[in-house]
Structure formats: structure tokens, C-alpha cells
């Protein structure tokens, strides 16, 4: 069936409508209102605040809503040095975020441990949580963080949302057991 712009709908009478796929629509909604959870641990947090301020407005992308509650946020921006002492707290907060969730490792310390190759610093937050975008810099400029957020928006746009929903519901219909999510002992 060829793609056609003719469909039984008269925009002059009923107003504007957009013809699209559910996946594209859901992803568009999600990517244009990604609410960050700022895990601002060190100096990168200052640049994160600068990105949220008026000069490098993060509100242009709908992300000015910095929800400090993991239940209400979509993307965790790990900005700063993750020490081993803090690592459990970061993991707990990540586990408490609701799906779908993404992680941005902002700066050198969150990506790989940065200049702190020492006994106290976790060498990269990707040792404990899955990271979607890494931002290089010490600290990265606000423009670099915005670039990373735009790349994350691109990743969100490509997610096969409906396909996964369909697969999950078909599994349920056929009674295929889901693998239960691992509950870390600290939370059980």
C-alpha cells in the first residue's frame, strides 16, 4: 500500500492532524521532555547548573525540570567524581528510577575515573550502571553537555517502543515467564 496523504479526514473542518506511527509519537514525546535527575557530585555539577541557567538554556529542550527525585525523572546525569563510598547510593538511586531511563556520564570522572586513578575513586560509573552517553571534558562545557543531550534525544528517538510492548504482551499471552529483575540485596 503506497504512502498516501489522502485519508478520510478533512482538515478544514476538523483542524490539523499529523499522521504518524505510535513509536515515533511516543519517542517524540519522550525525547522532548526528558527530565534529568542531576546526580551532581563534584565540579561538573557547576557546569550542569550553568547549562540549566539562562545563557545555555537547557529549557530549550524541555529539560529544565531537574527532578531530584528518581521516581519522577527520566535521565540521570552523573556529573562528578563517583567515589566508592558514594557508589552504592548512585546505584540505589538508579534502581529507583522508573523505566524508561537513560544515563549520561558527564565529565572525565564519571566516564572513566578521570585524573583520580586512586584507591578511593570508582573508575567510571559504568562499572555500576549502564551508561548511554559519555561526555568528555573536565568539566565539559555546557555546549558539550547539550550536544550529549541532543545525541541522547537521537537515541531515544530510535527506541522500538511499541515493538517491545507487543513482544512483552505476546509473551504474557503465551505464558512465557519473564526473567525476574535482580534485586540487589541492599534493597530487598
Amino acid at each position, binding site marked *: 500500500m503506497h504512502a498516501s496523504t489522502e485519508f478520510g479526514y478533512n482538515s478544514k473542518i476538523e483542524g490539523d492532524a499529523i499522521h504518524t506511527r505510535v513509536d515515533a509519537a511516543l519517542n517524540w514525546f519522550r525525547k522532548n521532555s526528558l527530565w534529568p535527575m542531576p546526580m551532581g557530585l563534584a565540579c561538573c555539577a557547576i557546569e550542569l547548573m550553568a547549562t540549566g541557567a539562562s545563557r545555555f538554556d537547557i529549557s530549550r529542550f524541555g529539560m529544565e525540570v531537574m527532578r531530584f527525585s528518581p521516581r519522577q525523572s527520566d535521565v540521570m546525569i552523573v556529573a562528578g567524581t563517583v567515589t*566508592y*563510598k558514594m*557508589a*552504592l547510593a548512585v546505584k540505589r538511586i538508579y534502581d529507583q528510577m522508573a523505566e524508561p531511563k537513560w544515563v549520561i556520564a558527564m565529565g572525565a570522572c564519571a566516564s572513566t*575515573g578521570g585524573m*583520580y*586513578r*586512586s*584507591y*578511593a*575513586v570508582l*573508575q567510571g560509573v559504568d*562499572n555500576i550502571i549502564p551508561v548511554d552517553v559519555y561526555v568528555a571534558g573536565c568539566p565539559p562545557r555546557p555546549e558539550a553537555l547539550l550536544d550529549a543531550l541532543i545525541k541522547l534525544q537521537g537515541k531515544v528517538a530510535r527506541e522500538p517502543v511499541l515493538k517491545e510492548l507487543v513482544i512483552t504482551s505476546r509473551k504474557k499471552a503465551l505464558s512465557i515467564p519473564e526473567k525476574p529483575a535482580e534485586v540487589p*540485596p*541492599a534493597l530487598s
Partner: protein
Amino acid sequence: MPALDQANQLIAQFGDLLSAPTEFRGEVTLVVNDSERIAEVCAFAKNSLGFDYLVDISSVDNYGDDPRWTVVYELYGISHGQYLRLKTNVSEEKSELPTVTAVWRTADWHEREIYDMMGIRFRGHPDLRRILMWEGYPYFPLRKDFPLAGKPSEMPDVAFSKPAPIEGGPFVAAPGGKDAIEREPRVRTPED
């Protein structure tokens, strides 16, 4: 030199307990020969000489020398504006000092940091526990025999630690090279 005057007053009070004052660039240092009496010396310094501000307590690991630890007290008097430094040596077998928390309350956290990083205990401390690393961490990181990269440790539900990848050595900058490429921090072998 006013700080020297106060150092001499301390020596007048305590006699042989203190060494002769050394001076370097205007900074006066006294060595307390018996580490057990450091609290007395500090109390006198605060109450009679007006050193009411403890700037810092730090510790030095003289790895290979005996006594192994040197603990350095930096004092300052807000009213007279003079600095004084008191040093005391502690041997490794003892690894213990009386606390000066009763003299200056700020010594609480400084002594906790020394306990955390070096393992020197403070007798009479109100709450001697680790302050930077987590409780139960098995090592003392700033000792000279502890590697910079760290050692693996595991405390389920609290924290874990793994050795960091040092990739051939600490990255060291070499000052005074003719351009930035020569000076940049990288692994340097001793013949460089």
C-alpha cells in the same frame, strides 16, 4: 619575633620536654619530645599563650625510620596573629596519642582523618571512627606502603573497592621542558 617569644615562653614552662625552636622563613617549630604530654603543651598554648585556633593536625609517615609517625600541630592565635608549629613523634608499635579535642573541638575531625588515613589512634577521642573511607575499610590509605591504585576490598551493602588501572605508572609532568609536549604528564622512566 613574637612567635619566637611565645615559643620561648613554652620552653620556659616545659623545659626539657620541648626542643629548641627552629625557624624557617618566619615560621617557628618546636618538637615535643614526649608525645604523651602533647595535650598538656597544647592546653598551655591555648590558655596562657592565646593560641586559640588550631589550623591543622597532620601526620607524616617516615617509612623506614623509627619512630614511624610524626604528628604536626599547626596553631594560630587570632588575637596576636602568630603561628606556631608543634611536632611530635610516635613509634609504630604504639601508634597512639592523647587527643587534643578537649583543647580545641576542631581537633575531632582532624584526628578522625589521621586515624582513617594513617591508623594512629587517639586516646580519649569522643568518636574515633573513619571519616573519609567507610567504616570497615580494612586499610590505611596514606601510609607509604599502601599503593596509590588501592587494594581490592568488599563489604556487601556498604562499599567495594578495586585497584585502579595505573597503566604503567603515575603520570608525571616534567617542568622546564622547552614546549608543552615535553612537559606533559605521561609515564616517565627514571632515565628521563
